[in-house]
């Protein structure tokens, strides 16, 4: 057994494991223990932040699969979140559907939308593809707005907290565990896809599409599959978002939200699941950081009303800074730190990937 021997690998199965060594296993248990006690130690504010990060991480992982691995740019992410949220809202209002109906329904709607709006990717790429996915955003936002107006929910749809196995989800602590499970589940699913045939095909398409095709990869099918899986996961995140907020309104799903998700992928680090998590945390916590910084810095009070403007501007600057100076994102910084401590105290050449 590997656990009783050294860390030498004796079977190919060991290369497929996420957790192989004892140290890694201990670290995982420590992390799980920390995550389990976190909601009981954290203040209300910190718990809410954690919930927001966990929720965003589901969408970020989904977009990372599509953009960071399969190489297909999408600006339709907010539209997909809205589609999931409205599916939940409409089914709840019209049919009083429970969560175990609305969640799969959102996934199905997301999959259909992903398939439809993935079709342009067979002909377009890069910026052109991004613009075509933008259509998704506006169509969903329009339909959502129409529904709100026609049914007289002009200020939004209020949704009751969901009931899971007779347990009403209404406390932040309960939500924490649900969102943690959702995030961990999405992460595991994505990691599994990436260590098998489909994930390798996506990365191959990202790198050299024509070569992948000549090697027997059905490129159109895999592109569409990436769109379908990513969209389906995102719509489920939208559904959770609706229940989490208890409220659905088109105003929540702006184009800026799409850009924030793209920012998570870029700032976190393209082509890395850890990057999706780091990016989600960074983008969610960033405005709070700015607010905090403006509160403690000696800034004239007449400027304090401009916190949103400063927030947007700083966000833009950080995006540009990452694109220019750290294209590998937070993961790139993390890997460099790892390298540094692995080699310490010896001086090292910077390893380029």
């Amino acid at each position: 057994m590997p656990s009783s021997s050294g860390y030498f690998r004796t079977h190919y199965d060991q290369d497929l494991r996420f957790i192989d060594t004892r140290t890694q296993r201990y670290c995982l248990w420590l992390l799980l223990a920390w995550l389990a006690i976190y909601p009981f130690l954290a203040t209300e504010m910190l718990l809410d932040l954690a919930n927001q990060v966990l929720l965003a991480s589901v969408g970020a992982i989904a977009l990372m699969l599509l953009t960071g691995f399969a190489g297909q740019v999408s600006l339709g992410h907010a539209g997909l979140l809205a589609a999931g949220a409205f599916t939940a809202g409409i089914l709840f209002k019209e049919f009083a559907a429970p969560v175990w109906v609305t969640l799969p329904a959102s996934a199905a709607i997301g999959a259909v939308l992903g398939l439809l709006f993935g079709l342009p990717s067979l002909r377009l790429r890069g910026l052109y593809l991004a613009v075509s996915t933008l259509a998704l955003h506006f169509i969903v936002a329009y339909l959502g707005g129409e529904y709100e107006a026609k049914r007289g929910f002009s200020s939004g749809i209020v949704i009751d907290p969901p009931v899971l196995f007779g347990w009403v989800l209404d406390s932040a602590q309960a939500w924490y565990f649900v969102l943690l499970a959702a995030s961990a589940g999405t992460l595991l699913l994505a990691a599994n896809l990436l260590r098998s045939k489909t994930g390798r095909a996506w990365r191959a398409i990202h790198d050299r599409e024509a070569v992948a095709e000549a090697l027997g990869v059905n490129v159109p099918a895999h592109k569409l599959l990436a769109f379908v899986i990513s969209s389906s996961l995102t719509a489920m995140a939208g559904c959770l978002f609706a229940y989490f907020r208890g409220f659905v309104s088109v105003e929540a799903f702006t184009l800026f939200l799409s850009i924030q998700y793209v920012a998570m992928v870029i700032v976190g680090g393209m082509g890395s699941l850890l990057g999706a998590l780091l990016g989600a945390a960074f983008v969610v916590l960033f405005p709070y950081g700015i607010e905090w910084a403006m509160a403690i810095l000696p800034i004239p009070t007449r400027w304090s009303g401009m916190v949103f403007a400063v927030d947007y501007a700083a966000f833009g600057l950080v995006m540009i800074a990452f694109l220019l100076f750290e294209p590998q994102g937070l993961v790139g910084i993390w890997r460099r730190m790892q390298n540094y401590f692995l080699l310490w105290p010896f001086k090292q050449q910077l390893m380029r990937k």
Partner: protein
Amino acid sequence: MAEQDLAPIALTLDHLFLEFGGLSVLQNLSLTLRAGELLALIGPNGAGKTSVLNCICGIYRPSRGSIRFAEQQLVGRLPHHIAQLGIARTFQHGEMFQGMTVLENLLVGRHARIRTGVFGEALFSRAVRAQEILHRRRVEEILDFVELSAFRHRPMASLSFAQQKLAGFARALALEPKVLLLDEPSAGLNRDAREDLARFILRIKHETGIPMIWVEHDMQMVADLSDRLYVLNHGEYLTDGAPKEVLSDPKVIAAYLGGAKHEAA
């Protein structure tokens, strides 16, 4: 040679024409590749050698003519389908997936042979795990064959160009092809790397019997290794036959060295 002629046909190109707009690239090209044959496709720059490979693997679509493989018509099929039928190729510039490890590159080459569904993969079911291990084992054998085992977990980008071209060779072999198309495998390699390459080509020929169409510029290498030469000039068939005869053919020399009229000789 008589034995070669009796070998069954692996791949046939029949009266093939390829045009881009008004530009005629290939004209009335017919070629037969026999089982176990190492056929070198030579010709001056721009003769259309790579275009022939691109037609076979579906990247280009010929305007007329047919390509038959295993009783199937290849013209009009998509590249990935042709690859799945068992036609693998290498690329002149390697064209490796730089961001993936050597192992992952080969596993992409094996894509068409791995039988897993996306739902099983998402859960990484027992069956998927078994498939991954099974194909890993096969890919390791191929890596061992091209002597790149030590580099299995290295990112492709960290390998030298010569190693990348060998890895490209391995990636094509990972498909377990029935026909192998080599696009200038020796281009950009030094003498040592070429000798290694020659050894691998001969080992494939003798150990697996996979028929190969080999586009090449190194005449010495071609003369020493191949069973038969097929010469293209300006997209047209010039001649074919045993290497020594073809390379001393005045028509071939004229094609390579320019318009000097050697016909009289």
